């Protein structure tokens, strides 16, 4: 099996249990995906890693038809409210890029897939969200 790396460091591949991990403020619980200097909500400076749920609902979406060169279109971008807390943005997968086929508020489940391969054969693993009924709970990277 070729070597795999996550596309961003808040995606934890963890064998067959890929999930997102956030920096959670130790004081107020605010969640962040980026490297932190302090909490923008309360000012605290200590954080703990928190695993987030793979399931959630679509808070907003757009179907992108025009993009920078090299970006494949059309694709569906969505903001997802995760069950148990956290908001994340990614592509919707396994859906037609058609506004009639996507419902605001619809339940979705995180899936992972190979987004690219570098010149050493290493695969970059990305995550997206599929309609909950169409997703595969055992889907691994």
């Amino acid at each position, binding site marked *: 099996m070729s070597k795999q*790396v996550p596309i961003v460091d808040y995606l934890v591949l963890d064998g067959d249990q890929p999930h997102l991990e956030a920096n959670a403020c130790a004081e107020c619980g605010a969640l962040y995906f980026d490297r932190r200097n302090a909490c923008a909500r309360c000012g605290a400076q200590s954080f703990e890693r928190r695993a987030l749920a793979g399931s959630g609902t679509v808070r907003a979406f757009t179907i992108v038809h025009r993009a*920078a060169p090299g970006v494949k279109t059309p694709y569906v971008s969505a903001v997802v409210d995760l069950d148990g807390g956290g908001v994340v943005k990614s592509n919707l997968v396994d859906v037609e890029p058609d506004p009639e086929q996507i419902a605001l508020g619809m339940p979705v489940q995180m899936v992972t897939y190979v987004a690219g391969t570098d010149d050493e054969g290493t695969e970059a693993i990305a995550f997206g969200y599929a309609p909950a009924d169409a997703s595969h709970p055992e889907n691994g990277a």
Partner: protein
Amino acid sequence: MTVSDTVWIIGASMTKFGRYPDKDVVDLGSEAALAALADSGKTIFDMDLMAVGNLYEANGMVGQRIQKQIGQTGIPCYNTANACATGASAVRIAHTAIKAGEARMAIAVGVEQMGKSGLLGGAGRAKGDRKVFEPSGRYGAVMSPEGVLGTGIMPGVFAQAGMEYARQHDGVGFEQFARVAEKNHKHSVLNPLAQYQKEFSLEQIMGAEVVAYPNTLLMCCPTGDGAAAVVLASDEVVRQLDPDQRRRAVKISASVLTSDPWTESAQVQPDVNTLTRQAADQAYEQAGVDPQDLDLVELHDCFATAELLHYDNLRLCEPGGAGEFIDSGGPWRDGRIPVNVSGGLISKGHPLGATGVANLYEVTTHLRGEAGDRQIEGAKVGLTHVIGLGSACAVHILEKPAA
């Protein structure tokens, strides 16, 4: 110098927005500055401060380069960059200096030359480079997340913001968003300073190429070039103006700038609502004006979806009622609160740094009764709004003084 309770606009100008391949930012900025000074009856030699907003050459001392064309007097010159609130931020600097008594008169200029560059960003690495995944940046990304982990560029961000509103409120969808563009294109026909002056039917707008659903090409602002300027003055200066000039002075009843307060979802998708609401509420309180008192509003319709949200954020409609507001014709020039009678960013154009000054020019011109064919009759109170993603939001309320 003494502290000034009120700050006034005594001169205002804008260039026609469009494309000026034979000019540079200094030409455009100088043109707007000289026209605003001429309009005020003052000269650059009367100014105590200059503030210049520009984004594309933000490290290029644009303000001082304009001074070198129109008058070098040694006054403090500030160059500002604050995304699409860049021009309005320059105005805020001039405003606070007069209010504090550090300046009696000041000029604020917003200028941008964008050419035909889009807002979509450039291509990735050059072909031929060896590609090895290495985590970089604050998210440890090994490749560009754009188009893989959703979208983070303007058309998609504002499309998602619109869809979030559509989820929260009934009666809001593609057609309501498209109607915003129908209105602004129609309004622009009366504005000779607009980059485009072309009417489109709702069918043409909804049937145009989709950029980021629900925004089609005719629901997105164009790129372009242009400049605008205002001359601000203290109470003392205005009292001493000759009567014909004093009659044309417009009072700045509120001047507010906000940034993003913390909200959960804004960590992944810019929240254009909360800081706009806070700016509007502060402005209404500062001015002692109720939203229902407004005779016209120039707001930041970078995309049609954005304008609809701001009806609600600026309290122009009932909470949650933005869909009903556009459906009922409320923001049309003959409606309850005319919005973007200039044509808005969608049709008037959006040279980034100029926008937040040009909307002050527009409202000032109506309050003076000098807006020609597009004049809103009897306009006495107007509001301007800009938002730069990242984010910065400016709201100004202007009033025609009692005669």
